[in-house]
């Protein structure tokens, strides 16, 4: 394959193969292409800036109507009612409760699967299980939402008869299962990149597989595992469709997972479904909510970055 391409390189250049004179035309073309590629790479920075600009621009108009103090301390979120209250706390509580449940499911199970796959499982099991987990991560979130509402909630109602039709609990549980593949695959990658000689050293002094995994491999892979956890938190906080379908859309200041409540993302979906005029206060609330969400995920991203830097292991 390469020899054919090397030949084509020569053929395309044709005339110049025997002529090594410096060619301005060629040089210019190279520079032009490099500029194009640079622009493409720079485009990602443009996206980030436009996200931040857009959210801040609309939020500023919002905060001219509503004081930041009211936004942060008011206990009701009813921007579309006649008696409007603009307190973000109910949306934050819904987000925190559903994310916590999701993480309580995803982190232990994901880590267990990762340790199992990287330290215990045979080659065959690993080769079958990994693609399977990847497929699980590829299922659209709307399908998980359907599953939470029509399968998990009725199932939970058998065990907990008082559970309402919409609840943070079932949304959180399904979200947790949805995040398992992310946690397990990133954690496993981190553990597999730990050099073999560390394990060999551990086995040589008589440690079992479990001891090696917990006391040698996991600390060595700490930075990668922390990154995986942070990513999981970020995903749980930003996840939309599962909570929008299964947790209900009533903003509700509660820490009780058995109740229904709206998350920040569910609120944005709910408002977008209606026909909101551009520039109205309702339109601006979704940008203010979006900015809050972006700030929360940004904090976790930075935290992850710092953690990784602080604990980076060099082998």
């Amino acid at each position, binding site marked *: *394959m*390469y020899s054919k*391409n090397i030949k*084509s*390189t*020569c053929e*395309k*250049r044709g005339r110049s*193969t025997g002529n090594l004179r410096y060619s301005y035309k060629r040089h210019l*073309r*190279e520079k032009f*292409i*490099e500029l194009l590629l640079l622009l*493409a*790479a*720079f*485009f*990602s920075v443009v*996206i*980030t800036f*436009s*996200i931040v600009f857009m959210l801040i621009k*609309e939020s500023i108009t919002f905060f001219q109507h509503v004081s930041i103090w009211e936004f942060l301390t008011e206990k009701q979120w009813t921007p579309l009612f006649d008696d409007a209250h603009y307190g973000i706390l109910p949306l934050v509580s819904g987000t925190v409760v559903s994310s916590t449940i999701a993480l309580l499911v995803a982190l232990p*199970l994901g880590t267990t*699967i990762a*340790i*199992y*796959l990287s330290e*215990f499982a045979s080659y065959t099991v690993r080769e079958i*299980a990994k*693609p*399977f987990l990847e*497929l*699980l991560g*590829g*299922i*659209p979130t*709307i*399908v998980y*939402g*359907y*599953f939470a*509402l*029509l*399968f998990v909630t009725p199932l939970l109602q058998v065990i907990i008869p008082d559970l309402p039709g919409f609840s943070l609990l079932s949304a959180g549980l399904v979200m947790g*299962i949805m995040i398992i593949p992310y946690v397990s695959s990133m954690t496993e990658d981190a553990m597999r990149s730990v050099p073999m000689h560390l394990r060999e050293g551990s086995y040589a002094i008589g440690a079992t597989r*479990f*001891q090696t995994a917990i006391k040698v491999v996991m600390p060595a892979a700490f930075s990668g595992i922390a990154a995986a956890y942070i990513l999981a938190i970020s995903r749980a906080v930003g996840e*939309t469709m599962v909570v929008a*379908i299964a947790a209900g859309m009533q903003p509700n200041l509660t820490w009780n997972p058995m109740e229904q409540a709206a998350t920040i*993302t569910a609120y944005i*979906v709910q408002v*977008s479904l209606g026909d909101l005029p*551009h520039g109205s206060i309702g339109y601006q609330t*979704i940008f203010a909510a*979006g900015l809050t969400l*972006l700030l929360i*995920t940004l904090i976790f*991203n930075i935290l992850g*970055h710092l953690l990784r830097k602080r604990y980076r292991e060099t082998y």
Partner: protein
Amino acid sequence: MSDEKKLEELRVVIARHRLWDLIFLISGMLALMLAILTFIALFTQMLIDGAPRLSWDFFTSFPSRRPESAGILSAWVGTTLVMLVTAMAAIPLGVAAGVYLEEYAPRNLFTELIEINVTNLAGVPSIIYGLLALGLFVYQLGLGQSILAAGLTLALLILPIVIVATREAIRSIPVAIREGSYALGATKWETVADHLLPYSAPGILTGIIIGLARAIGETAPIITIGALTFIAFLPPSPIKSEFPFISFEWLTAPFTVMPIQMFNWVSRPEEEFQFNAAAAGLVLVVMTLAMNALAIYLRYRMRKKIKW
């Protein structure tokens, strides 16, 4: 203490640790089983509810107020067109950015900024992209709630996936290939276009397929830009009978996509619509799973075939 006794104690310790090993082995297998069983439960539930609704009519009918005659025609046509726009925008941009970062970029602050930025973009929740699109595409640029706006939104969303896949694919090509090309007098771009891109094509393709599979299932950003949930007509045809034969009117047409159609049906109180939702979900899952499976297969084959 006699040696015999010491040995006995040691055996107890070893046995205990062996037991822990076994306990963990079993819990690892159980955790894996739980994940797989959930998938099976999800699929079975959808199959039981949705399979009876799957028929030729389901694919060729518009949504309707009567659940038994509602179909997904406008949804799958919409999805196809939106994906077309997404692919046209995300592939050239993503591959070009990946090539730049891997082959051209000097190691300086500016490059590092771009790199940190790409990583961060991958962690931004998808609904935030929806808000960006609502403000920028729908209102600032005046694209309206159109196929074009939706396609571009999803393109931005999967851009980091394409960039990362391109970089990884190019990075795995040994330096010797580049040296060989330069030794023959090729320029940087000739090396990239004639050697690096062709050899990394399967890897890049894998990333693109995974990105598109993700885009097909994305619901939130499309809802945010205001996709309609009930559409009983098709966008104008891209091929016309008179000159110039190709029309781009469809780009500005209102649309709906599969996940939104499904969301609409799930959130209705009537039970019959939920069977429709299950059927639409089944189609959606089969589509995304097929794409993901193709990507996994491609990567597997690539790993086996290429020996640098």
